[in-house]
């Protein structure tokens, strides 16, 4: 692949990759590193994606998978503390953020729930878009989101997401 083609792909897709990574990781440096990794994967995969309209969904899935793995491996996971208890512990105004919530979700739910939660609450996609990305049926998506909402009522309320 030529230098100019690499430049073109970076200018075209870099912001989409970074946008996904910063939403999940919350840290600029980590998001930048993750962007680089995912971009390198895109360089390897680009020619194999025949229908270029599938590139953007590919980026969403790949960036999400990569960031999920990073979050899963983070050492600051608090073992033995239920997510809702963690919310209560953070009453000092520091705030339990959406990112914290996602981090807890990463460690407690399976991939299908994680994907449904991420695309619904972080990317704010509707069920049609989530189905396009994950292949989950609307019924499965609803079921997975319900599992999530029932496990974290306090956290969702704190984030103002209990009405979603």
């Amino acid at each position: 692949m030529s230098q100019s083609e690499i430049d073109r792909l970076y200018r075209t897709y870099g912001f989409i990759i970074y946008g996904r990574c910063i939403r999940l990781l919350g840290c600029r440096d980590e998001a930048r590193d993750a962007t680089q990794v995912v971009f390198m994967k895109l360089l390897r995969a680009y020619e194999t994606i025949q229908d270029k309209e599938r590139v953007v969904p590919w980026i969403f899935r790949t960036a999400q998978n990569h960031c999920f793995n990073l979050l899963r491996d983070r050492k600051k996971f608090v073992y033995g503390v239920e997510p809702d208890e963690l919310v209560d512990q953070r009453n000092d105004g520091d705030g339990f953020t959406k990112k914290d919530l996602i981090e807890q979700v990463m460690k407690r739910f399976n991939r299908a729930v994680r994907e449904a939660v991420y695309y619904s609450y972080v990317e704010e996609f509707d069920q049609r878009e989530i189905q396009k990305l994950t292949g989950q049926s609307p019924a499965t998506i609803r079921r997975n989101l319900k599992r999530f909402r029932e496990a974290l009522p306090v956290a969702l309320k704190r984030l103002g997401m209990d009405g979603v």
Partner: protein
Amino acid sequence: MACEKYDKLTLLSYVTGDLSVEKRLEVESHVTRCASCSGVIKEAEEERAAFLEAFPVIDAVPARNRRLLRFTPVRTLLAVAAGLVLAVGAGSLLVDRSGDGYRTKGGVALNLFVQDGSGEPVVRGEPVFSPGERIQFTYSCGGERYFILASVDDMGRISVYYPAEGDRSMPLEPGRDLPLPNSILLDEYIGNELYIAVFSARPLRVARVVDKIERAFRERTDLRATVLKIDDAKIRSILLKKREYQR
């Protein structure tokens, strides 16, 4: 989702230019009538502009894991009967990170680093820099231990960096990845600049090397196509691009 007709993924594919012609025209027609979809597109374009302003180039290595790397010339050196003829290429984006890194034929090498805000030398994936930045070279050599470093820019202006004084090549200590004395402060010129390192087994006159560079540039004004041949000297080069905006 933007609206009932088009989802965000489709609109992003429109921004990236990945839709078929037919679909692109449909979206364009729709967007003129749909504030929601036009809002999504506008937001994406703003996001792209902000991203490229913050990160105009991509690093070759993660921010937290920098280590010594080398630029890999696009075209390799070709050994011919009369000596080495250099096929000059632009610095490549992806560098060789295997083992000891890239080794050119003949055992000489030139590497480029830029000093970051804390003065630490780092490698940039693509050699794009801004005026005011400081660059640092390291070298590797064995028998060809006499050295001249000069540059020529798009306008054909030639600068000599090493030797700092005197009219002949400066002697180098043989070894690998040794730093050249002093860093170089990039001036205000915006454009491309080809840094040319001439390693030789005996001292060469600086004026002769400058003359060779000048002739080579006049023959091919595209810096990347400059061909330089000086006796049996070994020549390495890096094409550095200077732009006004940098991360």
